[in-house]
Structures are given as C-alpha cells and as structure tokens.
C-alpha cells in the first residue's frame, strides 16, 4: 500500500498541475469567472458547497489514511483475531448530527438563491416600463437561435444583443425539440421546452464584458440531435446608450439596398431560393411558425458563420456549398438545389453586405 500512497501523491500532483494549466477557463465561457449577478450568486453557492465538501473530504481522508496504515496485517499477525466491535452510539450520533448541520448551512442559501433566481415578476407586470426592462423571447431551433424583442418589434438571430448592468428577462421556448439556453459565464441555465414557455433573468456585467472581449459564448446544453455540439450562439452586451442606438438602427433598417453588381446578382438568387425561409429585415411580421430559418438582417455584423465558423466569406461559401459537412442534420441542406461556384460567390457577397450597424 506504501507504493499506492506514493502513486496517489503523484497523481494528485499531476491533477493540480493540470488544473493550473487549465486555469479557471476562458473569461467568455467559464462559470468560474462569473460575469453578472446571477453567475455571481451561483458562484458563491459553488464556493460555499465546495468548502463544506472539502472539509468532509479532509476528515474522511485523515481517518482513511490513518486506518489503512495503522491497521495493516503485519508479519507475525497471521493468526491475530481483532476484537469484534458491534458499534458505538456516540460515534453514530456524531456522524449523523454534524452532516445534518453542514447540510443546513448549505440548504438555507440554496433555497434563498433558488427563489431569487426565479423572481420574474417584473417582466410579467402589465404596467411595466417597456423601455426600462428589456425582455427577449428566445426561440431555440435545430440548430439555431432566434432572439425576438417584443417591445421593440425587432427580431435577430444567432447573436444576442443586450444592455449591460441591468436585469434582462427571457422568455424561452423551443420550436422543434427540447434545447437548453446556457451562457456559462453569465449564469445559467434554463431549458427551452416544446410544451411551455420558461422565464428567467440574467445580468451582464460591463467590466466582465470588457474582460471577455465584448462577447460571451452561449451554448445549447440539452442533447438535441446530430449537431447539438454545434448549436452555439454569441452574446454581445452593450452599455445602455449603445444598446438603445442598436435598437434604433434595427427598427429603422429598411430593405437592404444593394449597389455592387455581384451582390445584386446574389440578391436575385437569394430572392429566388432563400427568402421563403430567411427574412432580411429585423421587422419580420410573419408568425413564429413561418419563421423557419434565422433572420439575416444583420448577417454582415455577425460573429460567426452558422454559429461556429469564423466570420469570413470563405467560410460562408463553404457553408453554402455543403451545409451538411458543417452541421450534420441541419434543416437547410437540400432546400435550395445545387448552386454553381459563381452563384455561391454572388450569394456570399450579398449576404456579407447585409449590415445594420
């Protein structure tokens, strides 16, 4: 067993090293670098539970190591018969009562935080100040996200834009199968069910946003099909005045005016093959069921192609050429026939020109 202990030590050392290397993850993605009130509360709860649990582990480890070393059957003890102890009421009471106390210490803040995080009264208040409290309707689809701002009448997708340092409220629903809406650094998470609407709130901290480089990563956390792993979205929190300006721009966005002749060609292809599903204005008035593909009004401003590829024309062409190779099981494959390279070039040019900002 001595050898075992040495291995154990070596192993824990290795574990620590790995941990240090990994750090606490990326500021735009890690729950260990909380970037808002919700994530903060959750992080403190994690710290509290971890400390209690480390205490437990230490106690067990001390007894464990002592017992395993002290009571080994040594040479010459082959015939030793230890005393057959039945138990000890005193000890039993100790290790029943102390854990109960420890759990109570954890249970109280858990319950309080759970209620606090579920407080969405403000968003359901009929007389609420529509400018003051931002509400976003999140609709999850295979494999993209739609963000509708009902108070402003605008719709966008894939990139969520929100104001910083204030509560942002969310209505969550899925249109096909169950997904789950998660922004690890900012707090999480809530399922988007197919049956009913869920509600919760988040706060996006300005300082943390700056530290994360202005963009947080969002994830789908519920297995939803072949491309579940690729159902990412991005969050762009802006200071309130910039957010208001963005909303204005979105509201005033007219049908895109294309001047470049190649892009014009692309527009023609788009209007023939794509417009049935994709809208190009943020003021899409069609009902939810008809909005079967991401809104592309501000496509040129996006962070990623298809949610995962770096945002450039080359990747856009790759995506248009064969969506299946990028996102297996996506709903766009095979809906627009085969395009020639020339047509793809034109389409890409047109799409990249779709900008609001």
């Amino acid at each position, binding site marked *: 067993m001595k050898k*075992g202990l040495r*291995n154990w030590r070596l*192993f824990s050392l290795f*574990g620590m090293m*790995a*941990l240090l290397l*990994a750090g*606490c*993850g990326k500021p735009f*993605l*890690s*729950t260990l670098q909380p970037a808002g009130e919700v*994530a903060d509360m*959750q992080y403190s*709860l*994690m710290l509290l539970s971890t400390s209690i*649990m480390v205490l*437990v*582990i230490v106690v*067990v480890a001390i*007894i464990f190591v002592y*017992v*395993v070393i002290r009571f*080994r059957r040594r040479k010459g003890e082959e015939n030793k018969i*230890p005393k*057959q102890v*039945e*138990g*000890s009421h005193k000890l*039993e009471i100790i*290790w*029943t009562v102390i854990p109960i106390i420890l759990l109570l210490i954890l*249970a109280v803040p*858990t*319950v309080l*935080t759970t*209620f606090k*995080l579920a407080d969405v009264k403000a968003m359901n208040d009929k007389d609420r100040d529509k400018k003051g409290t931002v509400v976003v309707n999140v609709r999850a689809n295979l494999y993209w996200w739609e963000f509708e701002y009902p108070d402003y009448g605008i719709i966008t997708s894939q990139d969520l834009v929100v104001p910083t340092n204030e509560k942002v409220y969310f209505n969550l629903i899925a249109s*096909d*199968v169950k997904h*789950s809406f*998660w922004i*690890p*650094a900012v707090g*999480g*998470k*809530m399922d988007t*069910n*197919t*049956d009913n609407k869920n509600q919760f709130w988040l706060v996006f901290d300005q300082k943390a946003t700056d530290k994360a480089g202005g963009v947080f*990563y969002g994830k789908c*956390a*519920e*297995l939803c*099909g*072949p491309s*579940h*792993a690729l159902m*990412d979205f991005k969050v762009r929190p802006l200071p309130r005045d910039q957010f208001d300006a963005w909303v204005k721009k979105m509201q005033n966005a007219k049908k895109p005016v294309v001047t470049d002749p190649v892009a014009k060609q692309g527009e023609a292809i788009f209007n023939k093959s794509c417009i049935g599903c994709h809208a190009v204005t943020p003021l899409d008035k069609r009902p939810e069921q008809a909005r079967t593909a991401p809104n592309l009004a501000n496509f040129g401003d996006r962070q990623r192609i298809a949610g*995962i590829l770096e945002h450039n024309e080359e990747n856009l062409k790759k995506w248009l050429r064969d969506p299946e190779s990028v996102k297996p099981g996506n709903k766009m494959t095979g809906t627009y026939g085969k395009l020639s390279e020339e047509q793809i070039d034109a389409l890409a040019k047109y799409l990249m020109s779709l900008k609001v900002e």
Partner: protein
Amino acid sequence: MSTIARKKGVGAVLWDYLTTVDHKKIAHLYLIAGGFFFLLGGLEALLIRIQLVKPNNDFLVGGLYNEVLTMHGTTMIFLAAMPLLFAFMNAVVPLQIGARDVAFPFLNALGFWMFFFGGLFLNCSWFLGGAPDAGWTSYASLALDSKAHHGIDFYTLGLQISGFGTIMGAINFLVTIINMRAPGMTFMRMPMFTWATFVTSALILFAFPPLTVGLIFMMMDRLFGGNFFNPAAGGNTIIWEHLFWVFGHPEVYILILPSFGIFSEIFATFSRKRLFGYSSMVFATVLIAFFGFMVWAHHMFTVGMGPIANAIFAVATMAIAVPTGVKIFNWLFTMWGGSIKFTTPMYYAVAFIPSFVMGGVTGVMLSAAAADYQYHDSYFVVAHFHYVIVGGVVFALLAGTHYWWPKMFGRMLNETLGKITFWLFFIGFHLTFFIQHFLGLTGMPRRVFTYLPNQGWETGNFVSTVGAFFMAIATVILLINIVITTVKGEKVPGDAWGDGRTLEWAIASPPPVYNFAQTPLVRGLDAFWLEKMEGKKELTPAEPLGDIHMPNSSFLPFIISFGLFVAAFGFTYHNDAGWGLPVGILGLLITFGSMFLRSVIDDHGFHIHKEEVLELEKKGANA
C-alpha cells in the same frame, strides 16, 4: 456438479445452461452476458473518448456519435451493471441465507432470458439501420423527432422486455429472502449483501413500472399513432421526463446499494472484524432507498418547475447525504482496530472510499438547485455520475468478481494480475473523470460530439482520453487473468480466503447443486465466523440428512423470452412491411403458448436421494 459437467460434451453443457433453473448456473449466465455487454459498453466509451481527444476531430461525428453515446449509457446501466449485480445476487444470496435455491427457480431463469433477449434486441439496431440516438434518457421530443431509422423503437421495446425480466428477478429475491431463510437467520442476522439485495429488489419492484409505462407511451407514439408526447395534439413531453426519472433516480440506488453490500462483506472479511454499526448500516440502506423515491425531480431543476418544487427537491436530495455518510464512517470504523489484509478485493474496497466520497460530495453540490443551473447537463455532471457509478458500482463489480470468483468457480483468480488490473483501472479512472469536473465548470456541455479549439478544453479532454485507455488495458488484463485461472488456476477449499464470515464460505467451492446437504442452524450475525471461533469447521445442522427436493430444468423460459424477441421485431416494422403485424402476433403466440404449457404441465420437481447426497459431499470434501 462441476465434475459431472466436465464429462459432458459441449452440446450437453450448452443445453444444460439453456434449460437450467439452478441459481448458481443462472449466476454464471448473468456474469457472462453482463460481462459481454460490459465489454461492449466499454468499447463504445473508448470510441467516444477517441473522438473527443482533440478539437474538431472527425472520427465519429454527428448522428453516429449520438448513437454510440446512447448505447454506451443504456448498455452500461441496463445490460452490464444491473445484470452483473444480479449475477452476484444469484450466486451468493441463497447461500448467505442458507437456502437450497431461490423461491421461484423457473422465474429466475425466465428473468435472465428476458434480460438477455431484450439486450440482444436493443443491440440488433446496430445492424438494422441505426442504434437509438436520443441519449439513455431518451427525452421525448428528441426521441419522437428521430425518424431516420428505428433506433428508438429498439430502445423502447428492448428495454420493456429486459425490464420485465428485472422485475421478475426482484420479486424472486424478495420472496426468497422473506420465506427461505435458514432457521435462526432473523432479518437482523442477515449479511449486509443480502440486506442490500432485499432493499434493492423492493426498489426495482416499485421503480420499473413507471419506466415501463413511459416506454409504452413512447412506443404508442412512435409506432401506433399515440399523442402522449405530441404537443400539437395536446401531449406533453415533460410527462416522459417525470416517468423516466421516477424510475431513473431509484435506478441509481438499485446499482449502488448492492455495491455497498459487496463492499460491506469485503471490509468485514479482510479486516477480520464484524461490520461496525450493523444495525445503523441496515437502517441507512432502507433510508437511502426510501429517500430515493422522493428526489427524482433534482434531475429536472432546469425544466422550469418553479422555485418551490426546486427548493423542496434540493433539500430532500441533500438529506440523502446523511445516511450515505453514516455508511462511509461505518466502513472506516470496521477497518479501525482490525487486521487488514490487502487482497485484490480489499484494494478495490479501500480505493472505493475516497473515490466514492468524491462522487458523493459533488452530488451534494449538484443538489443545490440554484448552483445546479450551472452544473446541469455540463461535463461536471458527467464527472459526478461516473465517479459514483465507476468509483462505486464498477469498483464493486470488480471487487465482487475477485472476491466471489473462487466461490463460484472453485479457482482463485491470480492475485498479482488482479492487483495490476486494480492499479491501472484506479489510475485510469481518476485520470479520465477528475478533469471532467473542470471541463464542465469551464463551460463544456455534455453529449457534444466535438468542440472548437480555443475554449480551454484541449488539455482536459486529452488527459481524459488517456485515462480511458488505462481502464481499457486493465480490463484486458482481467480477461487474461480469467482465462489463465480457468485453465490452470489454483483450486480452493470452501473458505477460500480463510477469513470468510458468512454462510457461503461454509460449503464447498463451487457449491454442490443442492447447496447445503443439511439446512444450517444460524446462531448470530456472521454465522460461519461464530462457528469457526468456537473451533468448529462446519455449521450446526438444523435438520437430519434426508432426500433433497430439487426443481426440474426447463427450456420454456428461453422460448417465452424468444417469443417476445420475435414479437418486438414484428411490431417495430409493422408500419413499413406487411410481414410486421403477423410476425408480431406470431411472437406473442409463442410467448403465451409457452406460458400456457407451463400452466398446464405439472412440475413437481425431483428428489436427490440421501445416498447420492452423501456421495457428493464426500467428493466435495476431497476436491
């Protein structure tokens, strides 16, 4: 009996096993079938880890990856862990209570064959279009959306069939333990493993029906036009989640309680001490099982049940930590003051404590609902349940294999190889899963087939994959050990480890077909130990030597289960092909027809005469 078996030809041995109703042979069947599925599930795990070894890997992408991950989970839980535990329950529990067999030998065989054909059916999906791909939890909206192939139908029908088998096994053990205990074996003198089996069986009996109902609903929706989970027609997918987890959470205890039982036996045996705080251990087991039914919704904290439900289920979940903690301390104090011998099974038992405590404390962390919103469906959860299930259940299965192998087969597994297996497995296990806690905390969702670079997950995933290979090598060495032992292992006496405490060690290894020539009289906890301490080598008999009544073998369990296997194929394809419905009905006819035969043909069993018993006993003593 093994000496007789060895003289038979291969065909005769095969027929013997196909028709056996002997709990010891059924244990062998469970061990072989469960072991096979364990290897299969392990292979699937390796494929998963290979795919995740680096970002943007294209070894196993999209839908196929989902099939592998679904089958890994389903296979490991339903077809490997549970059957392997059933193997030990069958092999050991009747011996531990001093019984000649289980209460329903026929049902016992039927339970095995149901499980076997259910598992076989499930795995047939690989060759018939595709395996189920909605995760082992098979959440309804995704499962109904999976229309490319019949994978999910194989899941619903296969698990229904194997589920019937499991329920039969549970009823069988409950009745066996209540009715068939030897004189003097009161409930509070039962070995801990028997207690665990008893409580587990009760859990199975009450937890499996909700799963069956859920599976029936899903089958109806997918194959017969039902609307249970179709929101457009008024259905509700959350019902599936509730039904699944009302089963799913107790299922975790169905796996872990017998594992606790195995470790309790091993700690006591190799510390040469009676189990510390036996009565509180029993109480804790019952309490864990009881709580197990009241916490299912902690798997659904993010579903949107509201803060009241979340808070209640959070606190209820935390409560489970108390009886579990009691158990951990009782094991530590069983060793305290003992004389610990570090055999291979004891290695696993000792390693189990820190490993399981790790899994247990993350369980408490997960129960804090508000914090769980962050952990839920991330790799943190993956790390947690593998710590519990591998560090608890798989360690117990490996420990039990080494511990009871001599009892089941009469030969000792090689200790050196056993310890090599242990170290590789132990190191591999922690390498694989420890780092996954941090993957989850840094934002990696579970069940993803790939990840992009620059999200801080490269190192963790690489380490994890390396660990998986350690476990794979360990398993290969275990297989080599088994082959070597079978060919030229050292034969052992009844009390193979020399420190046996419970009744199974008082009789020959492997035990004769009737187990006990004379039913023993039990005079306290650790009955065999008590006799040994008084200087006796054998148990005190409770009856004179006489003829022994034995049940007849039967081929019907095989046929009944085979009928369901056929029927499942028919119903799976009844919408696609004309032969579907007739084949389905034919299968049901085979099943109900053989049940009818079972009902009308009297089965009174046979007797082994006193003289034969004496002769067999003499042989056993010489072996």
